[in-house]
């Protein structure tokens, strides 16, 4: 454990949606699990999120979306990451996500989808495994 690098996560609230209970709970849970967490705050554009992720050199970007716009937002994020030549960051999405959209998000490149009601332990476990593999 001692020499292991702490996982660094950006929890981001893209777009206009301001429901942040879930994002703040996940941020606190990841912190409690020993990760370094940066919270973007509300109403961030995809560009702003990508810039924070690059500046802070995070391992993972977590998007919290409750408005239903998770597909267009995720598409924009991956497009922007590609334009910036960023390939080393895993992306996960949480929020109000209907089951039928999960395969679509994975197709876009999202590594993990955690709809409301997912146990925190599952998200933590996922991040640990994903970052180890990368």
């Amino acid at each position, binding site marked *: 454990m001692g020499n292991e690098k702490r996982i660094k996560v950006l929890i981001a*609230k893209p*777009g*206009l*949606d*301001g*429901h*942040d*209970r879930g994002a*703040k*709970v996940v*941020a*606190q*849970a990841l*912190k409690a699990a020993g990760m370094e*967490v*940066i*919270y973007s*705050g*509300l*109403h961030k*554009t995809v560009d702003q999120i990508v810039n924070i992720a690059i500046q802070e050199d995070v391992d993972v970007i977590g998007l919290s979306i409750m*408005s*239903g*716009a998770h597909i*267009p*937002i995720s598409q924009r994020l991956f497009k922007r990451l590609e334009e910036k030549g960023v390939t080393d960051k895993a992306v996960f999405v949480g929020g*109000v996500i*209907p089951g039928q959209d999960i395969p679509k998000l994975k197709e876009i490149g999202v590594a993990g989808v955690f*709809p*409301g*009601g997912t*146990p*925190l*332990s599952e998200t933590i476990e996922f991040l640990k495994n994903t970052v180890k593999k990368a």
Partner: protein
Amino acid sequence: MAVPRYIKDEKDQILDVILESGIHVKPSYSPEDLKRIGFDYEKDVADPGKYPFTRGIHPLGYRSRAWTTRQYTGFGTPEETNQRFLLMISHGQTGLNVAFDLPTQMGYDSDDPMAEGEVGRVGMAVDTLRDFEIAFKDIKLDKIGAGLTINAVASIMLAMYQAVAEKYGYDAKMISATPQNDILKEMIGRGAWIFPVEPAVKLIGDTIEYSMTTMPRTNPVSVCGYHIRESGATPAQEIAYAILIANAYIDNVLARGYDVDDFVGRFSFNLNVFGNMWEQIAKFRAARKLWARNLKEKYNVKKTQNLFLRGLFGGGGYGLTKAQPENNIMRGAYYALVAALSGAQTTALCSFDEAYTIPTPRSALISLRTLQLLMDEMGLRDTVDPLAGSYFIETLTKEMEQKIEEEMEKIVKYGGIVKAVADGYIQRLVARQAFEVEKGLESGELLKVGVNIYKEGTPMDVELHEYNYESAEKQIESLRKVKMERSSSEVARTLKELERVTREGKNVMPALVECCKAYATVGEMTGIFRQIFGEFQEPSLF
């Protein structure tokens, strides 16, 4: 503050019950408990319609009038929303509660790049008066009131509501709008804020001041403990913060030289119903009492009817689960029962599919029927405050009152509600409580059916509302048409006037009404405010 908890022995016998507000519940209550808390019927409770209104604000309760039903409704284009309004009204709904899409709530037009992917998604898109003309077509605006669930730009929507009413031939004095218009709670939870605290509160003051004479039947502000509770606050914090927030708005209007009795009677509240049912019922009873006492003792309010806490008690969103969604129908029924037992003036329920997306017509009608059958079938209209006099409920109401006062004192000691919100102090308290509750769910200390207990079952298929991308295109096209047809010189003139009064710190409402009538867009009006006021800087929490 605590995770609601049941302490049990190995045989599953309950040893202690701890409510979310931190109150311990005893196995049974007796006259001894009333003695212990110093219960005095006249002082603590009194008859319905009498100060401190613990039992309710009207002597005859639902006998004189059943509650108003107001399902939160709106999506896509104004045409689609208008059809849904008419559908709900044709099924006996007695009020409207308009859902706006996020671009509208945040003051962006449908063709703004910031609106991409969000137009018409969680509510209806509104760019200009043309959209209100369509949305409120064939609705009797002098007979049915409309809640406008919008906050940062509530002043604009209230102006637009006046403009549409006048366009359809109604006197502004006859219409009854209830813009939500509570920006401090947006900064604590829900997050649809734009401007910094000070100008944002000033805009609310403007709407209250303006309504007094121009729209006296309008309820210019609906103070929402609701979303604060959704964000994680305990029931005691929910009421404590709501009262302090309401006081901040009162103070703004008093500073303009008005008498409190001229306006405070039009305040209303929006409070949440999920959680332990006894705790919620005690919460509502204590809230009525504390609000009345606050107005009488702190503000010296004279007129009896101005001391009423008039409220929408409903929703319950956080209580609903994605797992086994049909269970949410039952949850909604119990939440509605809580609201009825607590004497709600108005109610609405989150529909069973809302853990997935906005409701279908079917799920919205199930919610409406739930509310109707409670009033018309189950006897909830028979007698006022039926739980009064229960040793348990009266003791709990008194204990809740104390917990709420403790939470209020914490904020006052910190330096007041405005500072506590601007600094993020309350946001931190609420986020921490949300995390505690989540840990309770995870550990099983807090039980939730379908989530951490009774998880087995047939997977349920839910028919979901589908977002229509064509609606967004239609809306953008309609905006383009309005922009071509309107008089650009009239738009420029009215916007210039808005800019002038905003810079001079005058009441913006008359200028906003003129802008709306000239078909200025929500984005254009908000743009002026953005330019002059700047934007709220969210305090960092972690």
